[in-house]
Structure formats: structure tokens, C-alpha cells
């Protein structure tokens, strides 16, 4: 692509009138080459020339939403799309409740807002970096396409945050935008800002778990930022949520299909005992206890993303009208929370106990509880898949105190049932609850790529329906399309 001659006003699908916003257009022009360099360096390795059947949003209304076609990823049309403006929108919580929503950044909140945007923005390229080698071991072209769709959409989410930085935060914003391209997931000198985004995504099961658990944290964060009194942030996040739903889909159905395949294979081989791990593994599928362990790992890592249970930062964000609660406007209360309490799980005298805390400082906790509820529903649907096959096994989310690095429980070891154990005891049972190196090796041994249209690796079932209603043998990625 000839960067010099890119017509930015039409090249970047947008509904923010970029062509008449010379200053922002110029800033984006300055940023774009660096973005492409980043994408080529850190994006999906080995497939930049392949034709991928992707969905692109060309406008934000439902009809312009899903344009499906083959595209080379570096030529994907990353755009700046905000949900339509509602002129009558108000600040819906905190001390500014009832004021007209802000179209510009309120001076006194500038630093706080920038921080929120930067932290959210930093997660977007991070997951692309974490997932960059997965294409090479995709269990099918269908899955490969879904991975790449997730990747380009994370790229677009980066654009969305960079637009806000460049439009509303002046020079500081431009520097932050450049820094988003400078940090690298897992880099010792310049890591991404949040822990879970520096962990490796070594295999496809990890990818599915990541999109189910970690991207769901993203969904909760976006949802509460979509409540923001700063209207451009709200509109940006509302549109991002629609894309985030696709990532939830990839995670939930990905894990679901692994469970389906394992149970089907067990039934076929006449294995009733889900704990006959070696026998099940001999079938070339992932045993259910290992699935539980992977789930324990990813769920607990994702809980850490919500930060400390009790946080004055969260209270300040809320009070100032910058970040609300999950589905704030659907909650029936005073939306100020000045005298409310919220029950928080804490460590009191070495025991796990529910403690009353001021609702304002417990907002992280509340969001995390909403997250857990959302996860539970998905896990229940996985259990339904297992149940339908007749295999006797149930997956369960581990206790909040299990395997935590941040917050109240970071200094204790607890089992998935929430029993605190000594360090010595923990060392003995750890590999019963978390994937061991052997488990990892076994899963890696299954990661053989399958690239014939319509074929799937042995460890995963085909999906119930194709993307864009395509037939089973549709060639979602033309790998050698150069």
C-alpha cells in the first residue's frame, strides 16, 4: 500500500466527519504508518498475504454493519465508528447526575479520563500480540478466520481509543497514542499495562478460554465506560461492544466444541469415567478434568483484571461521572451511592468473610460480581452440552479466593472450593487444580494445523453453523493467495 497517497478521508470509514476535521485527520495520518508497521511486526505471523473472509463495519447503523468479503489483513478497513449521538443524553450517575452529557473533556477530569482511555486502549493491541502465532496451528480454516476476525477487531478498538486520544487530549494524547504502539506484550522492558495481557497464549484452548474469560472482562469494562458522562467515550464503547460480542461467541463456542468432541469421543469409545484421563487422551481429545483446570486458570487471571476489591480510584471515577456500573441506567437506585453499602468478600483474621463496605469504594467488586454472573451462565451452557451427550461431569467456576495475584487473597492459597490451605499443602495439590507442564505439553501435542476446507482437527467438533451462513466446506481463508 502506498501510504503517502492514502486518501484518509475515505480510507478510514468514519462517522465523525474526519474529512472536515483537518487537525485530527493530520494526527491520524501521522499515526497510521506506525500502526501498519506494528501490525506487520506484531500481527498474525505468516498470514499477512492470505485472503481472509472478514466482516467489516462500514457504518454504525445495523445495515452497514456486516460487510463480508475476502481481504488481506493489512488492507482491512480500520475505521473510527461511534454509536449515533443522542442529543438529549445526560450524565446518569455521580455528583453530576442530571447534567447534560459532556461533548468535551471537563478540565478537572482530564488526567483521570486519559488514564481510563489509555488503560483500555493498551489491552487491544496486547491481545493481538499474544495471539500472533496461533494461525500456524489453527484446527480449521473456520477457526483461523475467527481468530483473524478477533485480531482485526482488536486493531479497530485500538483505533477507536487512539481517535479519542488524538481528538480530545492534544499533545499528551498523541504521545500516549504512540506509546500504545511502543509497548509489547510480555516485553521485559516495556510490557503491556495489565498482567493478564502479558501472559502467553500458547495454544488454541488457551485462546478460546482467553476470549471467553479475559475478553469478557473487556466487555464489562466497555459496558461501564459506555455509561460515561463523557459522551464521545460512551459512544465509542457502545459500538465496540457490538464487536466484542463476536469475541464472546468465539470463546464460548470454541470451548463448547472442544467439550462436544471430547464427550462424543468418550461415548464412541465406551468410556464412562471422565477421570480415566489417559484413556481419554489416547483418543486424541482433551479430557474434561484438564478443561476444568484450564478454566480455573483463565478465570482466576481474569478476576485479577478488576483490581483491588476496595478502591478509591473506582469511587472517584464514579463520583466524577466518568465510569459507571454495568448497565447503570437499568439499575433502580439513586445513582449516587453516597450512603449505600455493598458486601465484599475479604480476608478477615485469616478467614474468608463477607464484609460491608461503602458501595462507592466497592465498585470494582460489584463489576467483578456482575462478571462472575455472566461467566456462570456461559459455564451452564457448557454443562448442557456435556449433559446432552450423557457424560457425567460438571464444570464449575472456582472460588474468588483461588489463585489470586491481586487484591484481598493475593497472599493466601485457596482451593477452588474456597478452603485456605498452607503453602506446603498447596504445593502438593496445585497440579490438581491448575494445568501442569505435562498438561500443557499434551495440549500442545494436539495442535496440528488443519487447512483443508471443511476439515477440523480431531480434538474439536465442527460448529453448528458457518459464518455468514456459509456451507461447511467454505474456504474461509485462502492461505496461498499471493
Amino acid at each position, binding site marked *: 500500500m502506498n501510504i503517502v497517497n492514502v486518501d484518509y478521508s475515505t480510507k478510514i470509514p468514519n462517522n465523525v466527519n474526519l474529512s472536515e476535521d483537518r487537525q485530527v485527520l493530520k494526527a491520524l495520518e501521522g499515526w497510521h504508518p506506525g500502526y501498519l508497521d506494528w501490525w506487520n511486526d506484531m500481527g498474525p505471523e505468516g498470514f499477512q498475504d492470505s485472503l481472509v473472509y472478514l466482516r467489516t463495519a462500514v*457504518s454504525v*447503523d*445495523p*445495515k*452497514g*454493519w*456486516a*460487510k*463480508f*468479503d*475476502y481481504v488481506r489483513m493489512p488492507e482491512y478497513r480500520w475505521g473510527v465508528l461511534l454509536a449515533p449521538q443522542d442529543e438529549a443524553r445526560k450524565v446518569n450517575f455521580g455528583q453530576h447526575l442530571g447534567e447534560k452529557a459532556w461533548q468535551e473533556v471537563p478540565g478537572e477530569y482530564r488526567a483521570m479520563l486519559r488514564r481510563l482511555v489509555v488503560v483500555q486502549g493498551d489491552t487491544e493491541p496486547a491481545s493481538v500480540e499474544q495471539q500472533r502465532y496461533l494461525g500456524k496451528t489453527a484446527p480449521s480454516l473456520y477457526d483461523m478466520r475467527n481468530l483473524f476476525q478477533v485480531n482485526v477487531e482488536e486493531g479497530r478498538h485500538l483505533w477507536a481509543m487512539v481517535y479519542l486520544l488524538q481528538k480530545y487530549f492534544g499533545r499528551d494524547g498523541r504521545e500516549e497514542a504512540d506509546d500504545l504502539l511502543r509497548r509489547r506484550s510480555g516485553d521485559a522492558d516495556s510490557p503491556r499495562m495489565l498482567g493478564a495481557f502479558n501472559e502467553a497464549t500458547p495454544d488454541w484452548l488457551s485462546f478460546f478460554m482467553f476470549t471467553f474469560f479475559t475478553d469478557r472482562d473487556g466487555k464489562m469494562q466497555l459496558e461501564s465506560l459506555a455509561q460515561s458522562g463523557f459522551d464521545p467515550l460512551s459512544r465509542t464503547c457502545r459500538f465496540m*461492544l*457490538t464487536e466484542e*460480542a*463476536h469475541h*464472546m*461467541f468465539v470463546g*464460548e*463456542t470454541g470451548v463448547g466444541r472442544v467439550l462436544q468432541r471430547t464427550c462424543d469421543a468418550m461415548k464412541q469409545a465406551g468410556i464412562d469415567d471422565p477421570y480415566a484421563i489417559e484413556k481419554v487422551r489416547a483418543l486424541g481429545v482433551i479430557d474434561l478434568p484438564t478443561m476444568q483446570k484450564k478454566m480455573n486458570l483463565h478465570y482466576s487471571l481474569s478476576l485479577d483484571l478488576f483490581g483491588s476489591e476496595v478502591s478509591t480510584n473506582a469511587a472517584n471515577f464514579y463520583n466524577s461521572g466518568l465510569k459507571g456500573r454495568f448497565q447503570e441506567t437499568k439499575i433502580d437506585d439513586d445513582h449516587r451511592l453516597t450512603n449505600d453499602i455493598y458486601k465484599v468478600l475479604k480476608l478477615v483474621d485469616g478467614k474468608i468473610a463477607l464484609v460491608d463496605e461503602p458501595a462507592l469504594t466497592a465498585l470494582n467488586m460489584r463489576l467483578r460480581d456482575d462478571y462472575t454472573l455472566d461467566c456462570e*451462565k*456461559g459455564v451452564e*451452557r457448557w454443562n*448442557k452440552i456435556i449433559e446432552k451427550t450423557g457424560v457425567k461431569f460438571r464444570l464449575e467456576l472456582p472460588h474468588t479466593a483461588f489463585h489470586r495475584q491481586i487484591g484481598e487473597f493475593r497472599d493466601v492459597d485457596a482451593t477452588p472450593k474456597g478452603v485456605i490451605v498452607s503453602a506446603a499443602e498447596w504445593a502438593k495439590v496445585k497440579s490438581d487444580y491448575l494445568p501442569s507442564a505435562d498438561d500443557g505439553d499434551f495440549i500442545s501435542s494436539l495442535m496440528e494445523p488443519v487447512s483443508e476446507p471443511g476439515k477440523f482437527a480431531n480434538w474439536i467438533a465442527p460448529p*453448528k*453453523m*458457518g*459464518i*455468514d*451462513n*456459509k*456451507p461447511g466446506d*467454505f474456504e474461509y481463508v485462502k492461505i496461498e493467495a499471493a
Partner: protein
Amino acid sequence: MNAPTQELIKQHLIDPEICIRCNTCEETCPVDAVTHDGNNYVVDASICNHCMDCISPCPTGSIDNWRVVARPYSLDEQFSWSDLPAQDEAIAGAGGGAAVEALEDDVSKLLEEARKGLGGKPVAPHSASKPTVNLYNRGKPAIATVTGNYRLTDATSDSDVRHIILDFSQLPFPVLEGQSIGIAVPGVDASGKPHHPRLYSVASSRDGEKRNANNLALTVKREDKGVCSNYLCDLPRGAKLEVTGPFGATFLMPDDPAANIIMICTGTGSAPFRGFTERRRRAMPDAAGRLLLFFGARRPEELPYFGPLQKVPEKLLGKYFCYSRVPNEPRVYVQDRIRAEARQIAQLLSDSNTHVYICGLKGMEGGVDEAFADACRAASLDWTSLKPAMRESGRYHVETY
């Protein structure tokens, strides 16, 4: 005694087995017809107006399910499901087809009439892209602007066939090759009623008459006393008109480079095939599948797109022009050329990648059918069983008028 006729409705349902409860549809629905409980997301049939806004944002495809029912499923029934109920075939038979081609009765009737020659339920090719239907209706039409209106037929010919380009500016109007749009002449007819809509096949490919423009082309023949065709043919550049649609969910192009496509048409029946050919040229120029066009007209001067068609390379499109009124030459009809190509045709028909499309005047159906039967017979194929099998697998399509 006449039994009271029951009114059937097409009910929009969400497949609970595939849905991941992401709330996107509920967020999107402009009339709040989508709701949920702890178990399922469901659509309230008494509110849903089939605007289709929820269809494309759904990440799972669970949203796009329809049942023809005499009594709509209640919210409570839908909340209790873990699978979708099967379509009651007796009702579906009465209600016409599983694929929703259009949601307005007058348009549905036009499409049903056009597909009579199929001899059974129309089925879309498996690989076809998902069509959008009924985005715009009479209550809420799209406004298009005429950006081109050219005569395609020779000035000396008494047949006036025109190429008309409609631009939708910022308005989304997603069409697939093979779909139609509805146009009704403004105002009322002699009896004071609004004019009935007429359907016109789109003659351009999905990404626009000009690539990536939000426009489409029509091929319109000026009919003597034809109210709508005269209205369209006389529209000057810059004129605005109301458009409904898109319509049609079965006469669609297979989105598969391996598909062979045999296209048979007369006159303006060539419109969808112009779209097919352009799509193949733009999206999969090196496709392995063959495109064949059997195109009948009275004389070359009356054959729409005669000039441009000459320039399409044989490698992309095998062309068989058939003229029935060239002075001093024998009359050749499309069925004659099909017979002349019997070996090639039979070979293609025995390939499960082959799709047949017939579009044009109703009068051509019988002759074409016999020609296919002859071609098959010579190759020991049985057309009477092959045709319904091809239709059921979405590989035989008819649109005639």
C-alpha cells in the same frame, strides 16, 4: 360451505442452542421487540416489524430463524425452549417456502408467480451469501437518485431497452446478484388506488455498478402502455424515486469459485446474469468453475449489452447468442443452441458443482426444458429426476414473467 381461511404469519425466532446471550439484538432492536429472561433471548411477535436491523450484528447466526405459523409462539413458550421447534410442514406448505423472499404480500405474489416454472419449492444455493430482504418497504421506502439512464439497444431498433443506474448515497442498500428491487409509480391509478409495485432484477454486482459505489443498475425495457417501465425509462439524471426491497432469497449466485453456472435468458432477463458475470470477474477471476450464457434476442441490435458482452473474454464467460429474426438467416432460439451444445451441457449437468438459471419470458420455459431433456437423454441421464434433485439442492432456478 367455506371454511374461514386462517391467516399465517412468518414469526421471527432466535435459536437458543446457538445464541450466546450477548444482548446485541436487544440493544439493536429499534422497537424493543427483543427481550430475555435468565434462560433465553426471544422476539415478541406482536411487536417485531421485520425491519431486520438485528440480523447482521448478531455474532452467532442464531438470530436468523423463521417459522410460518398459524398462531405465534408466546414469550413464555420461547423462554422455555432449549431447541427451536421444527417447522410444521403442513403449515409451511400453505404459507409458501422456508426461505423468506419478501415480507409484503404483493411482492411475495410476484416472486411466487415468477418461480412457478420451478415445479417445487425454491431453494437457494448452499454457498450463496446471506441476502438482506425487505430492508425498505412501502411504509419506509429508500430514496434513490438516478445517476445514469442510457439506451442499450441500437437506435434503429424499435425495442428501447435502457440501463438505469440508481445511487443510494449514504443509505445502506445491500443487494446480492440475483435479487430484485421494487418500484411503484408515484400517485394513484385510474381507480384511485396506489400503483402496484413492479420488480426489477439488479443488473450489477454486490459492490456496486462502479466498484465500491453505493449504487446499482437495472435493465428496463420500455413496454407499450407499461406504466412503470415508461416512468423509469423517462426519468432524467438527478431524478429521485422511491425503492423497496431488496427482495429474493433463492435466485442467488453461488459464492463458490468451483461452481459452474449455466445462464439462460431472453431480453431483460439478462440483468441478473450481468450481475453474476461481473461478480465472478471482480471477486474470483481465476475461478475453476465455468460460466455459460445462452442469450436469446430477435436481432443483435436488440440484444441488451451486445457491445460490452463482446469484450468479455471467453475464458470468463462462454457466450451463445441466439437470434430469431435476422433476415435471410434461420431462426435460432436458446433451446437450439442448448441442443447444439448437448455434450458440454450433459457433462456439466452430471457435475454436482453445476447450477442452472433461467430468466426471461415465460414462453421460453417449455423449449428449454425439452432441450435439457434431450441433452440428458443422449448422455443416459434422466432429466425428470435430475431437475427436482438439482432444485432441492439449490442448483436449479427459474424466474420468468
